């Protein structure tokens, strides 16, 4: 291994007792690393044997038990057992064969500790941080939309995909970044793949970011349009966050959980009072906004939030968002385990093979994998795993818990989202998720439409759909596309059974909407800031007068770049909102492809680094998910660009509408007037162009990766850009639960005088 040479052997000493080796970097200090070679005990074997058996039974129940009476608890058991086995065996294999963590080497957090961004952080706390940073609306929304194909394909991909692809990506990117002072993915691509591959990766990340922001904003718009209750409670989050910001700045600096608690109480009040406000004439009048008006509100908000000081809006909103995220996910898990709902969805629906589903077009392969995205493999995680998290890590051996374990938790969130969508009446599900062009706008027209889809179960009536809307305090739930309203509906179904009874159904619905919108808006303002920095950095690299843009304190430059970023995602948002066939239907696949292509970039970097380190034998670990991901995304891109089916192919649809216009038609299929006709023509042109751009950029990155890998195999080529190792002078356990040896060494460190160098965040003191 390249890094073993640098550490001066002078003071390094090893002491072996039985199967355990203690490593010291300073003879006067307790050990800084433990290498445990203890064989697997019989008890351990029995425990994992039982877990494997239980998991197998749960999988059999899900996959082979038919008759629509599968209980949601089996999904939880199958997921948890598979995660435990994946974490214990597959992640351990990756650790031993590829990552090879060295706890006697100081992680960047220890070397550069400054009390700000570099800070050795207790592994359990960092797990929480990392999870809060990677989990967002993606794993909640994707599985809900993918439910159109039945619960089985989605469940398999979310669990298996996480174990073999998503977690591997997060873990490896984290381990590569940790050995490079927490460098970002773009920088690492440049270092490891060369200038061409690196530049393509940086442009790719920027464009993909814009699409991400647009689609997330579209999800919020679709959830809040024509819903005065939702709009009121979300708009109240702005004054609440401002209050929290001022409180922390001027009244009681540093009392973060105190102010967050106040904020959450105010937030709950906002959700409750939203029902009351929406019931009044003026409330309904002020807060009922159309999709277009709401889009403009979010665009203006996004611009304002990205130029306001961090302490005033972004930081407090982030605290609220973390609080709500962790709290609500725990609440939902308890709800599912207590209520134990029954699946209403079929295991595999007819839309899986026909590809004619109303939620998104295309057949199971590749579009299921594109749609689920974040819950199984998320390219965006590589932006968190490189950059923020590596700068807080105490010990290299904790990366398995943070990187691999963090993604397992996200996958579990996706499974819960899938459950909440699968327990809904299927007619109701499609009435909520099919575009307006199909359902019409009333309960009756929607009922007529879904009854004609040939779904299982008894048909639904318009009155039943209206009653369902009234039950959650909404005017209508027809065509509330985007996944968020469906998830909120499912969550209110689960939570009202456990907490509060049917009287609280409307509260839970709006609570869930608020919770999703809250962290989507957090992502929108944080993402706009990050994209602005990427843009000014990229433009600054062009040199000349643009060089000035790289100075972040030049306000004019910052504002201009913010405006460009917001204009970019804002125009996509408006495009989606105005699309006659429904923006989610056309834009979500683009979002999924973008996310999965980013994963391809990250996995390419990981594979190249593994090969450069001389571990060709183990290159299949990141290589197989990379190949799978490329197959999925390139097939999807190919179909989006070349498919002759106008529902799938952007260009076929484009020319169909161009021809219709040339023939003098003023309405055509979903376009009801000339303006809509023009909208479809320009939208499909932009979407088609982007599909090509994404695919080309990723091909360049992968080609650069292949060239680098071949050079490395032949010998020579660019060297690895790892840092020189520095000996560590702190100790911390590796896993969630410390072993006996780790406990013993921790005691020795705690017995040292307090002034001594060690991690301050490691214990409750």
């Amino acid at each position, binding site marked *: 291994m390249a890094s073993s040479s640098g550490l001066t052997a002078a003071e390094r000493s090893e002491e072996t007792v039985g199967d355990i080796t203690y490593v010291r970097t300073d003879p006067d200090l307790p050990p800084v690393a433990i290498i445990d070679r203890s064989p697997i005990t019989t008890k351990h074997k029995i425990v994992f044997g039982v877990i494997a058996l239980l998991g197998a039974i749960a999988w059999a129940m899900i996959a082979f038990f038919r008759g629509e009476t599968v209980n949601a608890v089996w999904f939880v058991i199958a997921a948890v057992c598979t995660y435990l086995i994946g974490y214990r065996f597959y992640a351990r294999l990756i650790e031993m064969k590829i990552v090879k963590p060295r706890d006697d080497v100081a992680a960047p957090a220890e070397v550069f*500790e*400054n*009390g*700000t*961004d570099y*800070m050795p*952080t*207790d592994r*359990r*706390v960092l797990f*929480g*941080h990392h999870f809060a*940073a*990677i*989990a*967002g609306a*993606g794993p909640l929304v994707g599985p809900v939309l993918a439910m159109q194909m039945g619960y089985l394909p989605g469940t398999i991909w979310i669990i298996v995909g996480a174990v073999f692809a998503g977690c591997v990506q997060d873990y490896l990117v984290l381990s590569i970044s940790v050995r490079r002072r927490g460098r970002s993915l773009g920088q690492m691509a440049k270092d490891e793949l060369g200038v061409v591959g690196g530049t393509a990766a940086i442009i790719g990340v920027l464009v993909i970011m814009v699409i991400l922001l647009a689609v*997330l904003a579209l999800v919020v718009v679709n959830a809040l349009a024509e819903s005065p209750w939702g709009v009121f409670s979300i708009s109240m989050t702005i004054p609440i966050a401002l209050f929290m910001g001022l409180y922390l*700045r001027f009244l009681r*600096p*540093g*009392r*973060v*959980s*105190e102010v*967050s608690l106040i904020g959450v109480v105010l937030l709950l009040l906002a959700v409750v009072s939203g029902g009351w406000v929406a019931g009044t004439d003026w409330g309904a009048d002020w807060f009922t906004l159309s999709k277009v008006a709401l889009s403009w509100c979010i665009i203006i908000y996004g611009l304002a939030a990205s130029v306001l*000081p*961090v*302490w005033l809006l*972004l*930081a407090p909103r*982030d*605290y609220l*968002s*973390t*609080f709500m995220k962790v709290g609500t996910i725990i609440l939902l898990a308890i709800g599912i385990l207590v209520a134990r709902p029954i699946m209403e969805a079929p295991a595999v629906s007819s839309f899986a093979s026909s590809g004619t589903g109303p939620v998104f077009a295309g057949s199971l392969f590749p579009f299921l994998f594109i749609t689920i995205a*974040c819950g199984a493999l*998320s390219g*965006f*995680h590589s*932006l*968190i795993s490189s*950059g*923020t998290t590596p700068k807080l890590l105490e010990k290299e051996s904790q990366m398995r818990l943070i990187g691999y374990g963090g993604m397992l938790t996200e996958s579990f969130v996706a499974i819960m989202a899938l459950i909440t969508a699968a327990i809904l009446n299927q007619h109701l599900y499609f009435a909520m998720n099919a575009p307006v062009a199909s359902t019409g706008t009333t309960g009756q027209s929607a009922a007529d439409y879904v009854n004609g889809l040939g779904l299982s179960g008894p048909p639904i009536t318009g009155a039943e759909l209206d009653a369902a809307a009234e039950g959650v305090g909404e005017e209508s739930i027809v065509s509330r596309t985007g996944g968020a309203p469906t998830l909120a509906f499912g969550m209110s179904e689960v939570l009202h059974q456990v907490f509060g009874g049917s009287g609280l159904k409307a509260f839970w619905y709006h609570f869930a909407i608020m919770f999703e919108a809250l*962290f989507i808006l*957090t*992502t929108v303002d*944080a*993402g706009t*800031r*990050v994209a602005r*920095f990427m843009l000014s950095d990229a433009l600054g690299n062009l040199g000349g007068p643009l060089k000035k843009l790289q100075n*972040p*304190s030049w306000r004019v430059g910052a504002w201009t770049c913010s405006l460009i970023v917001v204009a970019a995602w804002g125009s996509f948002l408006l495009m989606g909102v105005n699309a006659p066939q429904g923006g989610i239907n056309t834009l979500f696949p683009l979002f999924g492809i973008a*996310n999965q292509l980013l994963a391809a970039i990250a996995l390419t970097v990981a594979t190249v680094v593994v090969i450069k380190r001389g571990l060709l034998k183990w290159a299949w670990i990141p290589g197989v998910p990379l190949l799978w991901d490329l197959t999925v995304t390139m097939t999807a891109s190919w179909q989006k660009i070349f498919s002759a089916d106008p529902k799938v192919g952007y260009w076929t649809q484009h020319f169909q509408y161009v021809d219709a216009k040339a023939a003098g038609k003023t309405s055509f299929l979903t376009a009801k007037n000339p303006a809509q006709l023009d909208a479809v023509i320009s939208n499909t042109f932009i979407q088609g162009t982007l599909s090509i751009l994404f695919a080309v950029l990723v091909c360049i990155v992968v080609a650069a990766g292949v060239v680098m890998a071949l050079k490395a195999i032949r010998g020579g080529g660019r060297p690895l850009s790892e840092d020189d190792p520095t000996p560590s002078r702190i100790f911390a356990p590796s896993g969630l639960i410390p072993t006996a040896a780790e406990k013993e060494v921790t005691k020795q460190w705690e017995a040292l005088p307090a*002034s001594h*160098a060690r991690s*301050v*965040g490691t214990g*409750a003191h």
Partner: protein
Amino acid sequence: MGSVTSVARKISWYWGTLMGDNHYRRYVDLRNRTHPGEAVMSERDYWRMRHAATEENPQSRCC
């Protein structure tokens, strides 16, 4: 009784560290260790510095 308070203390420690309540204390400890005897900035100024750092190096939130 003792175990209840110890669990409560652990939870509050976890939550406080996750949210950032004790970040300033850790900064003070770090300064005392690396620059003993020198003046340490106030909690108010520490958070101003933290937010200024975020301003210059924003962190992404995921989808």
